């Protein structure tokens, strides 16, 4: 019996004995769950159990299942019965639901979100029928929210480490590289470089190095890029928190494939939960001989170290990341040499994103052909996105590549809230582009996004509605990229600064029409002559907003007007004479006493005093406060 078969048997037994006669109460404790108050739910559940001896159940924490707008989530799984998911719940509701289900056998169906199984309860939809999940395709998130990320047996019982076992026991390293190449998996960290190609180059270089210098302490490294610095992105975090072993398994397979002997996970220090879970997972994997010396009884040895990053966006760039691990300031270096030629400590190194590595075990256990059934011809598989902004359902989603933006925004996202109009979708994080309504039918794949002037990036997807000012959006993203520029190269350090100054001027109503020429000159120059991806992509928000929303820039400059009513210097607050009932609420709330009037009299705003803080509009119960004459 091979070591793996024994480990699998152990895991299956563990899991079934844990579940056979005991119910499981699972609480979503990803960062989103915690932020929504998950810990209070956990406490409430534990207290309820302590007070009711007749409830026999284990309380466990699971990672994020993706439906963040319904957190905190409470799942109940009773042996022999389908798993029910409730959310969002309060501590009080938790107590009530648990007592009803376990003691009174009453299922609070109205509160239930979905049943994580077939249609056992006709009045509750199955989770993959609810609109948020129905169009999704879960490969990367296969385990997130389902397994206990702190138990290796849960992962193994769900086919975990089966890919590693196949690779190590049945395949040569070359065959593993080929399988990855055949799958057509492209890097999920942003650039979309085929993982198999990167591995081939590294494997060749490691081989040559071994031949030419037989006495080196190590010949190759695998680095997992878990820096995830894009503001608002949490795809990688959810995977690390909800399924840490999948990434570790991917790294070990990568190490075997290219002939590396060491791995590093570079995880941002702002992800404490991910770090804790990774540490635990690494220990568990070592204990089960899945990591360390002679893995699964073979000659292959490989270990992984965790390195915490100190929170610079640019440290996600691969050469900076290497400098940072080496103890230097994270500043990009020109390539070539590429890391696969000369990387960490000058040794051939592959750097792959969390999600890239998370796909590897599936490719190895199911085979490249099955994995590659999903996706388009050039963009295979699925991709996770952090869907945020002005959309009904926000959260972590995973879709087959090739799905249209429209489907993501309207089917999964449930459309734009408050009956507002869709205006733009920003893909690819702070250096991605803003795509307008006309591009809604664009398919989400690497080529189509690039063609439209944006990028896939690592999976940020921000939806904006009509109340968003596109000039202000460009300014906002430039503020980020300028602040995070490492300062090394001229076009990025100074070019983004000058663009930011121009954009700020325009939003302050001080723009000149020549400013648009300067932006149009600067943006391509910065793109074409910056050293690293940060500078090269920083102009994207400017380029795309100029391309798709030029009239908005012109309105700011030529008409002194912000069409979205956002730019403070360009808007005026007035009170509608018809709708104002003279209730004095706004008058009292105004912090600078800009409003005059008396009870039952129409109020008036003195625009010279008004600081456009928006307080009056927010407090008015009669929608009588207007911006530029419009109700926003």
């Amino acid at each position, binding site marked *: 019996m091979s070591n793996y078969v024994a480990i699998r048997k152990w895991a299956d037994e563990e899991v079934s004995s844990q579940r056979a006669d005991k119910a499981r109460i699972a609480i979503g404790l990803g960062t989103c769950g915690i932020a929504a108050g998950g810990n209070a739910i956990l406490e409430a559940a534990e207290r309820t159990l302590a007070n009711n001896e007749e409830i026999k159940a284990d309380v466990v924490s699971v990672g994020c299942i993706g439906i963040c707008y319904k957190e905190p989530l409470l799942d109940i799984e009773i042996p022999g019965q389908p798993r029910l998911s409730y959310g969002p719940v309060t501590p009080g509701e938790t107590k009530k639901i648990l007592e009803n289900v376990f003691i009174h056998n009453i299922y609070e169906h109205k509160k239930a979100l979905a049943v994580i199984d077939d249609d056992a309860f006709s009045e509750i939809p199955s989770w993959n029928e609810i609109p948020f999940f129905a169009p999704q395709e879960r490969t990367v998130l296969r385990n997130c929210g389902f397994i206990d990320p702190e138990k290796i047996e849960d992962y193994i019982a769900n086919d975990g480490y089966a890919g590693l076992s196949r690779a190590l026991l049945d395949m040569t390293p070359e065959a593993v590289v080929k399988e990855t190449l055949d799958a057509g998996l492209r890097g999920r960290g942003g650039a979309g470089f085929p993982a198999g190609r990167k591995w081939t180059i590294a494997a060749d270089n490691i081989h040559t190095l071994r031949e030419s210098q037989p006495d080196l302490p190590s010949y190759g490294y695998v680095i997992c890029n878990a820096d995830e610095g894009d503001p608002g992105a949490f795809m990688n975090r959810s995977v690390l928190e909800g399924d840490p072993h999948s990434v570790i398994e991917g790294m070990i397979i990568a190490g075997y494939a290219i002939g590396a002997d060491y791995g590093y996970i570079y995880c941002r220090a702002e992800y404490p939960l991910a770090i804790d879970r990774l540490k635990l997972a690494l220990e568990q994997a070592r204990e089960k001989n899945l990591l360390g010396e002679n893995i699964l009884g073979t000659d292959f040895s490989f270990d992984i170290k965790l390195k915490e990053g100190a929170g*610079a966006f*640019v440290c996600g760039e691969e050469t900076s990341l290497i400098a940072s691990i080496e103890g230097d*300031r994270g*500043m990009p*270096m*020109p390539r*070539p040499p590429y890391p696969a030629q000369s990387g960490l400590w000058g040794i051939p190194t592959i750097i792959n994103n969390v999600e890239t590595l998370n796909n590897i075990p599936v490719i190895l256990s199911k085979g490249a052909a099955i994995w590659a059934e999903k996706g388009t011809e050039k963009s295979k598989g699925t991709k996770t996105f952090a869907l945020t902004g002005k959309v009904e359902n926000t959260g972590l989603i995973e879709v087959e590549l090739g799905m249209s933006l429209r489907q993501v925004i309207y089917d999964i996202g449930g459309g734009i809230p408050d009956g507002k109009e869709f205006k733009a979708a920003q893909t690819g994080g702070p250096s991605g582009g803003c795509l307008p309504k006309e591009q809604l039918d664009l398919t989400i794949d690497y080529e189509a996004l690039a063609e439209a002037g944006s990028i896939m990036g690592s999976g940020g997807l921000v939806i904006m509605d009509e109340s968003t000012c596109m000039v202000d959006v460009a300014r906002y993203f430039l503020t980020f990229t*300028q*602040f*995070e*520029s*490492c*300062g*090394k*190269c*001229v*076009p990025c*350090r*100074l*070019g*983004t*600064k*000058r663009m930011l*100054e121009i954009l700020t001027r325009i939003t302050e109503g001080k723009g000149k029409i020549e400013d648009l020429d*300067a932006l149009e*000159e*600067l943006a391509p*120059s910065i793109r*074409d*002559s*910056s*050293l690293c991806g940060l500078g090269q992509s920083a102009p994207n928000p400017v380029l795309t907003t100029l391309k798709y929303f030029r009239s908005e820039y012109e309105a700011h400059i030529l008409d002194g007007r912000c069409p979205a009513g956002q730019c403070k210097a360009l808007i005026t607050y007035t009170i509608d004479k018809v709708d104002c009932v003279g209730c004095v609420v706004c008058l009292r709330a105004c912090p600078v006493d800009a409003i005059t009037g008396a009870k039952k009299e129409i109020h008036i705003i003195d625009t010279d005093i008004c600081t456009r803080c928006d307080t009056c509009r927010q407090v008015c119960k009669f929608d009588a406060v207007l911006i530029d004459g419009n109700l926003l």
Partner: protein
Amino acid sequence: MKKITLTIDHKKIEVPEGSTVLDAARAAEVYIPTLCDDPLLEPFGACRLCIVEIDGYRGLPTACSTPAADGMQVRTSSAMIETNRKTSMNLLLSDHPLDCQHCVANMRCDLQYVAAYVGVRGDNPYQGEKRSYELDDSNAFYNRDLDMCILCGKCVRACDEIQGRQAISFGYRGFSTKITAPFDLPIWESNCESCGRCVDMCPTGALFDKSQLKHGLPTGETKTTCPYCGVGCGLIVETKNGEIIGVRGDRENSVNEGHTCVKGRYGWEYVQHPDRVKKPLIRKYLLEGKKKSEIDKSSSDWEWAETSWDTALDITASNLAQIRDSHGADSIGFLTSAKCLNEENYLMNKLARQVIGTNNIDHCARL
């Protein structure tokens, strides 16, 4: 070593493997503007002025960092290159004080030269905030005026790669990026050894010798060897009106490739100091042939008097001979100096062992 052949602007050139495109261009005598490259430092790729076009390469690779390859076709000028280069130069100048006449680096500033080469004309289309810092004059020998700094990183790399001190590095991010000593303290509080290599490499007026504040450009330069120790570093002594106004390392000297220690670079003021002893001094009583036991030390006999080399040497020689004859050769010891050349040390050895007849000889480097 394996050679590779490439073409730069229609010129074929053969260079050793491992050369960069910039190395090859220099060998072919094709000028490519650079501000952050130095042949003595590792490629860095910061200024983005050395961009070129290479067949089969995407975008605009930088010549300084791209390895030359066999059969490569390189173009150093095109509309695309010129536009981007001009933008980078205009951006650099948009954050640089523009009063060259009052700048210490006037006429020896690479930024000035390269800007002239690129040909930026008329009003700079990019105007905005300029960085402004307090002058750091804490170091005894050089000042740091970071308003002038273009962040080429040469000083940082010189300190790390050549001097091995790592006294300075990049600090902060974005527009606020600056070269700093640890914790942004004044440079004097860092572990800077004042070798001055950063000053030597700085392409602008951001780092300059304090002595440059007093004098303008030198009118003469003399190649010489450093007198301080036996290494024999090559120096270039800068002079004006018959006075030394500065010293820098001689890059063409294979011993030090332009590098010096603090003494060689900054310890030259003694040369023209009024207190400097330029002729031999001898106690008066020796000139008068008196004995030490016969004189009163409070009298003028004990005072120093100028004399000629011949007289001083004669008196020294005869006294040494007399001591040897009356007390034996081993009553005399010789101590030589690291400031002497090998040849001089050899001769001292001869003098001790053969002329005087003692083995009592040692060298300051052993003490």
